[in-house]
């Protein structure tokens, strides 16, 4: 195992890496999402929300790196409404040390986009100076898959997206990240500080135990505003409409390959 060959002094100070983990509060995966009658968005009022599943994986990775002594401190951050604090409490209950909540007023929430979030995170990175930022690869509400990449660009840091494994590199001076790409797996070495986004197979998140849920209450949770960070939340895009996807029409069953080819010909799909 690689643990015993790590020279801690190599890994950005003998105290271990400082990790910043992004958590987004999204509509729970199990909820049946409904489009608002005015087609301006989806119904969020009274709907169950929870932490974005990819962010749970990111939190778990940060906690594991702490347990392996690769990291010394893990900080969770969430950009969102007041209720994002619940999401941060879940992260704290999983083992994160402290949390930061960048509170977005309700009026601006619907128009918040990855460009804004990445700018806010970049500002926080300036003061927090983490060695590693781990974000979920995408959020299950907008599926943008942009924040991690934008953040790396703003900070001019290396990025390793869709990570399925994070470990120290051979010489222990960098991070070796295995990425899930269309063609298979790609392994790259990135120097710290860096931005990594978590993919599904990075790990399996733990359940928060009751003792940790109790402990989480005492962990620090700091609040910030976009104004304090000096970030302009002016939307760059305008959502014109949100609609249900077309209802899937019933198919027809065929008895044989000949039938199938015949039907395809009928529809003009094959010559």
């Amino acid at each position, binding site marked *: 195992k690689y643990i015993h060959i790590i020279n801690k002094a190599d890994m950005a100070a003998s105290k271990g890496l400082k990790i910043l983990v992004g958590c987004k509060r999204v509509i729970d995966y*199990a909820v*049946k999402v409904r489009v608002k009658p005015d087609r301006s968005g989806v119904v969020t009022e009274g709907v169950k929300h929870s932490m974005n599943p990819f962010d749970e994986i990111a939190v778990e990775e940060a906690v594991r790196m702490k*347990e392996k002594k690769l990291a010394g401190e893990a900080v969770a951050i969430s950009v969102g409404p007041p209720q994002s604090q619940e999401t941060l409490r879940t992260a704290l209950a999983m083992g994160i040390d402290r949390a930061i909540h960048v509170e977005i007023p309700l009026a601006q929430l619907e128009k918040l986009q990855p460009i804004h979030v990445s700018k806010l995170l970049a500002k926080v990175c300036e003061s927090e100076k983490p060695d590693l930022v781990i974000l979920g690869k995408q959020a*299950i509400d907008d599926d943008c898959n942009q924040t991690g990449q934008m953040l790396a660009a703003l900070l001019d840091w290396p990025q390793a997206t869709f990570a399925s494994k994070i470990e120290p590199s051979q010489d222990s001076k960098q991070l070796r990240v295995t990425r899930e790409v*269309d063609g298979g797996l790609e392994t790259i070495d990135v120097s710290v500080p860096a931005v990594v986004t978590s993919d599904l197979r990075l790990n399996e998140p733990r359940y928060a*135990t*009751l*003792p940790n849920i*109790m*402990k989480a209450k005492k962990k620090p949770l700091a609040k910030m505003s976009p104004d304090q960070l000096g970030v302009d939340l002016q939307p760059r895009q305008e959502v014109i409409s949100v609609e249900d996807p077309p209802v899937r029409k019933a198919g027809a069953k065929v008895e044989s390959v000949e039938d199938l080819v015949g039907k395809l010909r009928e529809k003009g799909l094959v010559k």
Partner: protein
Amino acid sequence: MQFIRPVLHSQVCTSARPSARQFLQKLGKSCSFSLNSSSTRLYSTEFFPINDELYGLTDEQKQLRQTIFQFCQKELAPKAQQIDAENDFKDIKKFWRQCGELGLLGVTAPTEYGGLGASYLDHAIVMEEMSRACAAVALSYGAHSNLCVNQIVRHGTDEQKSRYLPKLISGEWIGALAMSEPNAGSDVVSMTMRADKQSDGSYVLNGSKFWITNGPDADVIVVYAKTKPEAGAHGITTFLVERDSPGFSCSRKLDKLGMRGSNTGELVFDGVRVPADRVMGRLDGGVYVLMSGLDIERLLLSAGPLGIMQAACDTAFQYAHIRKAFGQSIGQFQLLQGKMADMYCRLTSGRCYVYSVTRALAQGSRQPMDCAGVILKCAEDATQSALDAIQILGGNGYINEYPAGRLLRDAKLYEIGAGTSEVRRLVIGRAINNIYKS
């Protein structure tokens, strides 16, 4: 909320996040955006939501419910049907270990033995969510964590606690409690199992116990026997018996109507020698251990039928909104609206009663009347709600592919175990008589 000292769980609980993971896998392993947003519509509301605001739960308790819900839905719920069909929970040892890692087997036990040092209400929440996933396994869980573990916590000497609690709480051992006998159920103090004192101070147990949950699997059993048969109820003593004691055996596993998978057995004690330091509580004072334990047992177990009622609502309400007849979903017809309303009110009022009494107990106030009342009400309501669930599912409710039938068979047990409904009514009636005694 009392401060909880850090628990010695250094081991990471490697159990996975439940269906969220399957959801993500279904969305496509792709590293890019292959997300077909219509796939989110596959996941309709599978569970009837619980409004925790109604019950005055703390934030920690709400989070606890979330955690246990996810854990049980992933690790237990998918196996519930098979466990019922086979009358066996093959993975019980593995599941016990997972529960141990989460601290669930010793919710009310002190932290120095690996417990959570938490309240009866926390324990009830765990019991409820586990029962929602699989009532049979939850019953075994209740017998282990409350009937066995909690009794040792309340009455054991320091030596007994040190010897038994750590492994019971880590999940390495399974616990049970044995009071009923083939001829002594409701009239449990008429039990005939003898515990005869020997010249070296030890006791020899002779007799048999019946309907013992976890009996076939238990490593440690809290056993009640008569040290002074002529003194009737005041001749009972509590003993801690270990599985490998010579003369002890489980003669058979019972084939039950419901709670199949919660192994229940007949235990035979044929000259089982128990050392003197395995006496729990006062000699001949076992009836107090038994009766006070029964109150807490009834209270904690009443979360079992709560979970069953919740499961009935989960299954039936979803079905009623998917199944169509005469051009609309059947849930919109008045007669079914009525049924769903009744199921909802039984569930919600039951929860309020259970949570209130557990809170009172946590403050130190134990009322036998309410401990009996809570399980009396919830058990009978659960049976009724399970019947309603079957009816809402109609023909499908009668097929074992659907869970409604199992919910009914499981619910019925709670009207019998831990004191039958008749005994519970006696307890309450007599308590009321007492108030007016001149």
